[in-house]
């Protein structure tokens, strides 16, 4: 068993429930292939640095787990088939230093999952309110930047 980190970007066109369902399906892919999930940390809806399949934003979800190295190819094959995913990144944590960092991140993710567990429900409600604000700001920012560049 080796420590891995899976970052997946789920399509933003899905509804909140569909996103949660597909995240659960992704976690199930890992567990059904003999992986043990140590922690998960949802990074939430973010603007992508560049458009992927014409999507400007995506739902980021990070899964820390220990998986047998031979199972990784199968998991990645399943990820590739999954049409809800825009992108996935698998990172191996192998050396002592990396494992220490991995454990630190797992502890951090667990803490973050426990502490704002009660706050999570309003946070989800806030998210749609925040996104239009960002969208409204973005064109203004680009307009402001454009004359400055000229």
């Amino acid at each position: 068993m080796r420590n891995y980190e899976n970052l997946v970007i789920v399509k933003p066109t899905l509804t909140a429930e569909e996103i949660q369902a597909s995240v659960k399906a992704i976690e199930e892919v890992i567990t059904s292939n003999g992986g043990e999930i140590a922690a998960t940390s949802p990074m939430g809806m973010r603007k992508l640095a560049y458009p992927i399949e014409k999507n400007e934003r995506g739902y980021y979800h990070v899964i820390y787990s220990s998986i047998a190295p031979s199972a990784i190819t199968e998991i990645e094959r399943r990820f590739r088939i999954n049409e809800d995913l825009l992108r996935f990144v698998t990172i191996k944590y192998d050396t002592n230093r990396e494992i220490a960092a991995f454990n630190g991140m797992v502890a951090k993710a667990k803490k973050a999952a426990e502490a704002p567990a009660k706050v999570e429900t309003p946070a989800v409600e806030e998210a749609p309110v925040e996104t239009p604000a960002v969208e409204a700001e973005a064109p203004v920012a680009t307009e402001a930047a454009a004359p400055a560049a000229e």
Partner: protein
Amino acid sequence: MAEKRKYKKRYCKYCEAKVDFMDYKDAGALRFSLSERYKIMPRRLTGNCKRHQDMISIVIKRARAAALVPYTVTRKQVVVAPFENLK
């Protein structure tokens, strides 16, 4: 031979902060080693040591794959504080 130095002495900021591990998800921390067009800055300009330059280049490439940091920026998209509208 106390010749006057032409430039300020460069030192590795990561060594000074004793960085052992860099997280690719923390895109703001990678900004120091990226140019305004998101190219990886060379060691001769940032003063990074070889070890940390190797680490940061791997981490930046991971972040690019995860769409946290762009590969390239077109002329229109170059902005002064690029990470502020990434959130």
